[in-house]
């Protein structure tokens, strides 16, 4: 066998890790489905998995209704959003060679939210109703398109601004901060100026929330998740080479400009379509990739899928935590991810000399 010994070591603890992840995922999913204002017995979940929804009667029927119409779509949407944001973050961190890169900080989220809000403003004739169940289905399906366009525009703007005068990582982040703060102020201003909703709803929107998202949202986002999943195996190898820096990558035969641009488009697409559905959930793309890297190393063929899984888990877990907070309203998932993500951001910042 010519198989070199070095590939064995990193695979040694992989089964253990996979098992641990599976257990964590199961726990997070079960807690999300069963716990809440209406506590659902495990038996109802088990039964309704195997039989039709309407079979049960009495309190079990209510429980099954809550389970299938409220919690299941919310869980699935959380998984999709988390996976997309984390993979977008992993791609951005490689392409920009900057551990602080994240769709939130680079303005992609801001651009996506702005166009999403504008779409609703125009689709509803200037009456920005934020009660999510009032929207037309067609508008909902247009949403990921609008958000992706917004994300791409914002990313393009940030790049154009920072490219003049050398595209250094720090300059890029700085331009991202500038563009993002303008975009976020615009979103806040539009919601405050035209939003016909109480403060709680607006606040949750600005932070990013899974509250009230039903199956329609899952179906609207699913094509984008699938598209992202199909693109990822194509991206992994060029991303590996991009990690080596521009000169080495081009010396290894990669057309750096093309792949860098393509990666940014894919990352914007993944992040922006997710943001369009749930709002600017922050710091997932910042938090997850380094953890995935610590677990499986920098080979993107492993790091990218694992980031997706971990991101999905993180968002679902954060949503569970936010829902179980005491108080008048539940905490939006974006607030929880920020509260976890900012200390990590600070840690990364401190570590950078």
């Amino acid at each position, binding site marked *: 066998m010519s198989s070199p010994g070095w590939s064995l070591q990193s695979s040694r603890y992989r089964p253990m890790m996979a098992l641990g992840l599976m257990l964590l995922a199961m726990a997070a999913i079960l807690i999300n489905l069963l716990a809440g204002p209406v506590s659902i017995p495990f038996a109802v979940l088990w039964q309704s998995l195997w039989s039709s929804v309407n079979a049960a009667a009495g309190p079990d029927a209510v429980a099954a209704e809550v389970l299938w119409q409220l919690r299941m779509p919310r869980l699935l949407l959380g998984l999709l959003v988390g996976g997309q944001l984390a993979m977008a973050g992993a791609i951005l961190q490689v392409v920009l060679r900057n551990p602080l890169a994240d769709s939130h900080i680079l303005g992609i989220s801001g651009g996506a939210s702005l166009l999403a809000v504008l779409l609703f403003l125009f689709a509803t004739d200037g009456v920005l109703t934020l009660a999510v169940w009032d929207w037309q289905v067609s508008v909902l399906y247009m949403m990921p398109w609008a958000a992706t366009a917004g994300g791409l525009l914002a990313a393009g703007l940030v790049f154009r601004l920072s490219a003049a005068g050398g595209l250094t990582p720090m300059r890029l982040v*700085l331009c991202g901060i500038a563009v993002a703060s303008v975009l976020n102020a615009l979103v*806040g*201003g539009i919601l405050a100026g035209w939003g016909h909703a109480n403060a709680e709803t607006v606040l949750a929107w600005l932070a990013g929330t899974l509250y009230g998202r039903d199956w329609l949202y899952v179906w609207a986002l699913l094509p984008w998740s699938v598209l992202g999943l199909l693109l990822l195996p194509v991206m992994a190898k060029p991303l590996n080479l991009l990690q080596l820096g521009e000169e080495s990558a081009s010396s290894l035969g990669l057309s750096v400009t093309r792949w860098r641009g393509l990666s940014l488009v894919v990352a914007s697409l993944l992040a922006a379509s997710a943001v369009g559905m749930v709002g600017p959930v922050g710091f997932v793309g910042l938090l997850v990739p380094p953890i995935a890297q610590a677990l499986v190393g920098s080979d993107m063929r492993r790091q990218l899928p694992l980031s997706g899984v971990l991101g999905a888990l993180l968002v679902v877990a954060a949503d569970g935590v936010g829902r179980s907070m005491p*108080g008048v309203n539940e905490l939006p998932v974006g*607030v929880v991810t920020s509260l976890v993500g900012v200390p990590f951001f600070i840690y990364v910042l401190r570590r950078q000399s």
Partner: protein
Amino acid sequence: MASEQAAPWFRWGGWGLVALSGSLVLILMSLSLGVVPVAASAIIEVLLGEQGGLAKVLVWELRLPRTLLGLLVGANLAVAGVLMQAVTRNPLASPSLTGVMAGGALGVVLVMSYSSWPATASPYAALVGGVLGAAASIGLAWNGRLAPVRLALAGVAVTALCSAVVTAVLLNVGSSADELFFWMAGGLLGRSWPQLELIGATSLAGLLLALVFRRQLNLLALGDEVVRSLGIRVWRWRLGLAVLAVFLTAQVVAVAGPIGFVGLVIPHLARVLVGDDQRRLLPVATCLGAWLMVVADVTARTLVAPAELPVGLFTATLGGAGFIALIYRQRL
């Protein structure tokens, strides 16, 4: 330079006249424009106490205090920005990018939500929050020196954390959230004499204090060794002036909510106009900040009248453009 040779009272007098007449024009504009326009003659009559009725309510109860508040808010933010940039010798230091604004807002939200203190306590809550926010960002960014980009990143982190906590608190308390949310959006809508009374005297005192210390600000630009050799206790001055900057910002946050970017962009704009000398920079920045705020407020309430836009929409757009121009100019 020619102007250096003219008598000081003449130079200062000339510029003062420009500042005064500009401000008067803007005040008049702000008093007259709105959903119901008020003619200049009616304004003068109201101010002389010769007319009552609707014009009096509009001018005296609504627009005049709001305009004066706008002037103060803008001046406070601009001067706070000048002070921070001089103290840290960092072109990106400003109330919104160093976490002062967000820390102050968090302080106000916490006190107003969980204590029974009256609204008059909010400037102090904002001051405490602002000091903590500034200390956190500077502490996080510090690694032997204060690199502009690191400070901005640390400020972003502190701001993100504060706004997450603010959202959590507002959602947690429920009932009083609407009022606080309205305030968090930033702006002068509905602000009147009580708010002006709350911060008027203290803000003016702070602004005057900053003007008094403009020579020390100039010295701080020289670098620590030189300043120390001139017999000035660098850190004491730095700390004092930084606290003054946070104080001025806290006054703004307490009554008008967080208003971003004015404190970042106005000092640089003033620098483009009159150069780095703080003796000229400080008054010019004060004036520009005050004017910008009044113009933004008038635009916010007239653009889509009878509805009113948050003034933060304009300051953020203007400020963001200025921020980007700054990144170019300074080659950061």
